[in-house]
């Protein structure tokens, strides 16, 4: 197990390093010159050079990349003289647009993305798995067909359409919810819940529909297995049969998918956060791309990659716990 873990962690580090390198390479070679954007009006070539020097953009690629990497683990200095700023590890640099520490920006916005992700995940697991189980048990009935048609429809609605439609109906017309905003829990649990409810619903809808279909097909497959026939032949109560024998193998693939989906969401729900103006990592990514704010783009790319890669490892470990057939010795 320890060897397996060590191997996985080494792989994780390698993948993150490669993501880092390629992302940096793309920005270094292909992206527009941020110095020109910062320079703006009444710009002169001298001023552009000066900005490039201040930002360290005049250094060779490998030097810049090394500075970036070493900054992640040991911190680094920016500027000079009285304007010298020491960026503490983990240093992801400073936003070209705002001069803000990118690490602090992430720390500031991650709780919002996490709140959106966790709330949505709870919702889609409850609804998706519940509906899938119910559909599987009622296979072939009117209930089954209706639920699966609803799931197909729900999965087809784009997030931004659902978001704007819900906002119009629930906030503008019926006035049962406030306009979504990143309210802190300390501002009042009820307001916090109301403010996040719509983003949760929007984000959970698509996933819940997919999970319902996935759960249904897995449960139906499992119920047809020989060991299930054996369990029923032994005279076990149907509920017990379902809980003890059917659910675990049926939900193992769902767990795998969930791990990946949830990890990806922690990197920011770009569309939902942008539509609702929730200042999470997803919105930060959208804003930084629009503004060509390279350090921030680098950071959110790395963060998303980190969550996906770590999520992958965690899912594999959980998988081994769930399914004795793939247990590591």
């Amino acid at each position, binding site marked *: 197990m320890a060897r397996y873990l060590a191997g996985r962690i080494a792989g994780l580090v390698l993948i993150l390093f490669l993501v880092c390198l390629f992302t940096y390479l793309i920005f270094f070679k292909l992206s527009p010159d941020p110095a020109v954007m910062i320079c703006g009006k009444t710009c002169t070539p001298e001023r*552009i050079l000066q900005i490039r020097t201040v930002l360290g953009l005049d250094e060779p690629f490998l030097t810049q990349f090394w500075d970036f990497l070493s900054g992640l683990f040991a911190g680094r200095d920016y*500027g000079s003289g*009285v*304007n010298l700023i020491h960026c503490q590890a983990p240093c992801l640099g400073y936003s070209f*647009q*705002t001069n803000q520490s990118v690490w602090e920006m992430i720390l500031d*916005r991650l709780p919002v993305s996490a709140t959106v992700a966790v709330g949505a995940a709870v919702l889609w697991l409850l609804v998706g798995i519940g509906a899938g189980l119910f559909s599987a048990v009622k296979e072939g009935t009117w209930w089954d067909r209706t639920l699966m048609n609803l799931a197909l429809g729900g999965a087809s609605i784009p997030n931004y359409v659902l978001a704007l439609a819900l*906002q119009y109906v629930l906030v503008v017309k019926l006035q049962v919810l406030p306009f979504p905003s990143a309210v802190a829990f300390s501002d009042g649990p009820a307001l916090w819940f109301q403010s996040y409810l719509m983003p949760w619903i929007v984000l959970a809808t698509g996933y819940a529909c997919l999970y319902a279909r996935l759960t249904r097909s897995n449960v139906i497959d499992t119920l047809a297995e020989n060991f299930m026939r054996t369990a029923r032949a032994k005279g076990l109560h149907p509920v017990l049969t379902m809980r003890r024998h059917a659910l675990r193998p049926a939900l193992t693939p769902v767990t795998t998918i969930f791990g990946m989906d949830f990890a990806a969401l922690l990197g920011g729900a770009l569309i939902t956060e942008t539509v609702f103006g929730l200042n999470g990592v997803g919105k930060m990514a959208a804003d930084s791309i629009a503004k060509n704010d390279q350090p921030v783009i680098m950071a959110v790319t790395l963060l998303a990659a980190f969550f996906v890669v770590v999520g992958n490892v965690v899912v594999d470990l959980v998988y081994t716990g769930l399914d004795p057939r793939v247990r590591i010795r």
Partner: protein
Amino acid sequence: MRRSAVLATVAVFTALALTGCGGASTPVSGAGAGDPAAAGAGTGGTVHFLLSSDYSHLDPVRGWDGGVNNFYRLIYRGLTTFGAGPGTEGTKVVPDLATTTGTPSDDNKTWTFTLKDDIFFEDGKPITSEAVKFGVERAWDPEAGIGSPYAKLLIDAPKDYKGPYVSGDLDTIETPDAKTVVFHLKKPYADFASALVQPNFVPFPKGTGAADAFDSKPIASGPYKVESYRRGASLKLVRNPHWKAASDTVRAAKPDGFEFTFGLDGATIDERMLAGQGADANAIAGAIQAATVARIQTPQIKERTLSGYMGCTTYMSLNTTKKELGDVRVRQAINYAVNKDTVVAGDGGTTLAVKATSIQPPTIVGRVDYDPYPTDMAKAQQLLNDAGLGGGFALTLDVRPVARQQGMAVAIQEALKPLKIDVKINNIDTSTFYEVIGTPAQQHDAALTGWCPDWLSGATFLPPLFDGRNIVAKGNSNLAQIDDEAINKRIDEIAEMTDIDAANAAYSELDKQIMEKAPIVPLVYEKNVTVIGGNIAGAYLNDSFSGGIDLVSVGLEDPSK
């Protein structure tokens, strides 16, 4: 300033907004809710401001666009500022911390200012001439001084001066006593009082603000101070107890505070402003989206709508270094052929834009309305025939992939079709657009862009765009790359004029002189259309801040709500 800065003002895209712009002057169609300077506003309450983007910088030597300049007036004061009021009231340069708009000597090369009494920073320390000097010196700091260039352009300084943190005191700004500050300029400049309105003339206690300290915690000299700031999310201002209303003739400062919410989706902001529920009744916002125009026509919404010029000109530059466009007859033909009415329609219709005829927008002081190229296809065809291009040619137009820009580009494309000018619309991502068109080696035949002045004078409009000596390899703003000796000479002559009114009139004539060469096609003057909350009072669009609501006058009709 580029048009993008105006968009930032109206909460769209601060990243590219890097300079100050003039704003909407006289309300045009649909103006109704705005009352002169804080009329109808009670004292107290909190005004909410819903925005798509955060302000570029809280540090005034870094930030420099119409939106942030407007905001700065809440927390900072300068020696001079713009007046408060709709129309020309908001474009007058008036004394702020100084007792007058300055005393010139040495043929406008030396300017002396005396500070008022009872002026303090937020910590209660008096604002002295030393603080003014230090605040201005910060503009030379190589890392912080990225905002307005006017201090560096106008004030005499050694070539190697790098601001107070690195080089110490600047001898050309004298402080003979605590109340007097004297500026020595590089050359005579009659309109120095207008330049002083720029945000990098804000005083700060000596030695403060190194690195990026003011970007998170500014030291206020205005009626409000920053209580809390979460970049990109929210900003809360509360009253500065050391600000004395008696010393300030401009800022009404009626509310007890302001709350800014950043990062909201444009459509969501519009939805909230139209609904006007709860605290949104106390809210103001930037310009509405084009898609919302149809929904503001009801009487209830109309009475909460303000409209006015943004003070900028959207234009199509014609690159005079390109083969066909090097011929003035071809550029004139294009000017005659482009139908401005269809361009206005492409830009969202007459609610959002008015057709442009001259280079300078209507808000520029001294500007004369004239139309050198009314739509005339026969004349256009004749000019092309004379130029030997009667069979047409291909033209590449650089455009941002933004709906309104696309609409205008298509209108231009259609207008030039009858002349057999095949316009190829070349979309360049917004994040790289200005870099590409500002690099002569990369720009194509034409570009769809815009310009806003730093204050409402031709001085910050025509020279940056048409002075041939301004053409640079990167960050170029003379997109037509026109280098005409007569125009350059006239620019120099006007710059030396000591009578500001005469200079403004001369710029208006220069506008005509430039348009004879047809280096650009003026397309539209865009308008800022904004919806205010039902409990908002004293809101009007200030010409000097890109047509944004003047924050120093806005308040609540019923502060208890």
